[in-house]
């Protein structure tokens, strides 16, 4: 693998990407993401998911000109199984 394609993720981004990849192709709700990636009794600002999805897009989608991480309005997010 070429070094140019390496992306550095923080621990939380890695957990989020892993969770979305395990559920690739399926729509996952914000609540599910919060429960699995953060905590079952998450007590932070739920908006945090959007922030992290934004980070992930900046790292794994945008540099490669892809749109693998979709926002499903009113339902949650979906990671395209084919990589966008």
């Amino acid at each position, binding site marked *: 693998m070429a070094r140019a394609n390496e992306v550095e993720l*923080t*621990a939380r981004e890695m957990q989020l990407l892993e969770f979305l990849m395990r559920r690739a192709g399926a729509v996952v709700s914000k609540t599910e993401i919060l429960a699995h990636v953060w905590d079952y009794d998450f007590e*932070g*600002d739920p908006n*945090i998911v959007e*922030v992290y999805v934004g*980070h992930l897009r900046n790292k794994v989608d945008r540099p490669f000109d892809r749109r693998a991480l979709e926002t499903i309005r009113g339902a949650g997010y979906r990671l395209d199984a084919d990589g966008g």
Partner: protein
Amino acid sequence: MLTVGEAMRERQPNFLARADSIRARTTVLAIVLVGVALIVGAVALVTVMRGALTESVLADARLRAADVAAELRGGTAPSELTLPSSDDLLIQVLDAHGRVLAAGAEAPGTALAADLDPGGMATITVAGDDDPFMIISASARGPLGARTVVVAHALDLVEESTEVATTLLATGLPILLILVGVVAWMLVGRSLAPVEAIRREVEEISGTQLHRRVPAPPGTDEIARLSVTMNEMLARLERASHRQRQLVADTSHELRSPIASIRQHAEVAAAYPERTNASELARTVLAESLRLARLVDDLLFLARADERTLELKHRPLDLDDLAFEAARALRREGAVAVDTTGVSGGRVRGDADGLRRVVANLAENAARHARSRVALSVLEEGGAVLLRVDDDGPGIAPADRGRVFERFVRLDAARARDAGGSGLGLAIVAELVAAHGGTVVVSDSPLGGSRIEVRLARASDV
């Protein structure tokens, strides 16, 4: 007791006496420069004056020769000529063979300069006279044949004038140079005197006399500015020294109480072993030694921060994770309710351990002062990430808000120590935030107590 070096200085208290002093060097330089200029000027003056006088003697001689030549041309016989005569002026009329046909009363009977070309000039000495003469000749072809008029004019006036001028200059120049030297010595001495005063004062200021200041001469010249700068430096040294002593005193005080507590419990246990509960003793010793360890850790950390030897690894970091971590720790203690609903994503570049310490210290500090609630929040605002830690405690008066980041500052000393703070937590926060290029400020919290807000630069994703 004086060391050898001090003894030598004592014997030579006046630095101006030293050969390497600026005063001596400047004086010598002034004398040499003025001396060279004056000598060049004097030589030029004498040369020009001598030239001008010689020129006037020559012109006079030529005039005399022309007069006599005109008479000869007019047909006057040499014997009938009335030749002006003085011991300064010798006139001869020669025929074509160089024989003297007529001569002034003082002139010798033989030709003064037989081989002188008409129109030429030379300097000769005459028998019976010490001074040199300037001699010229002019030809005059009259009705009685070719004649040569020779005029010799004494140069005694030129010689005398030169001598007088040289004597005057030779005595005047050294006097002038001495004057220059004295004036330069005095002026340089006067302008350097404050420097010597400053030096002497600084030499006497030892580590325990940092309250002393060097004398400040009036005005705003270089030396006045030097003394102002020096006094500012002394003030900084004094403050630093005071802080250092204060810190040592505070540190000893802080270390004393856990040590006293351990000792007291151990003494009681030794005196009354039958009444001692081993697990209770162990708990006390453990708690106090943890407090000691924490204090020593904090002190070492601050010492490293002061020496700028903190090892911070800057990596992308989620401040929200650190906030949740700190909140979990507070909730485990269970003393206060912890609100994290304001924690959203906040990506910074920083040292994980360092920023974890920042968040933990702020959270513990808030929990110590809170009545019942602490709120943590993380948000991104423009190019910055804000970490806010709120409590519903008594708050911090605006006048004290800068002071809380100083070491061992407790606004309510007794109560805060009971609550377990080392007095170094916020000082460490301030150091770490500064090391990350951020700022930390205290304000009022919507919860009613104080809010401490850390502002760090937001990290980009690429």
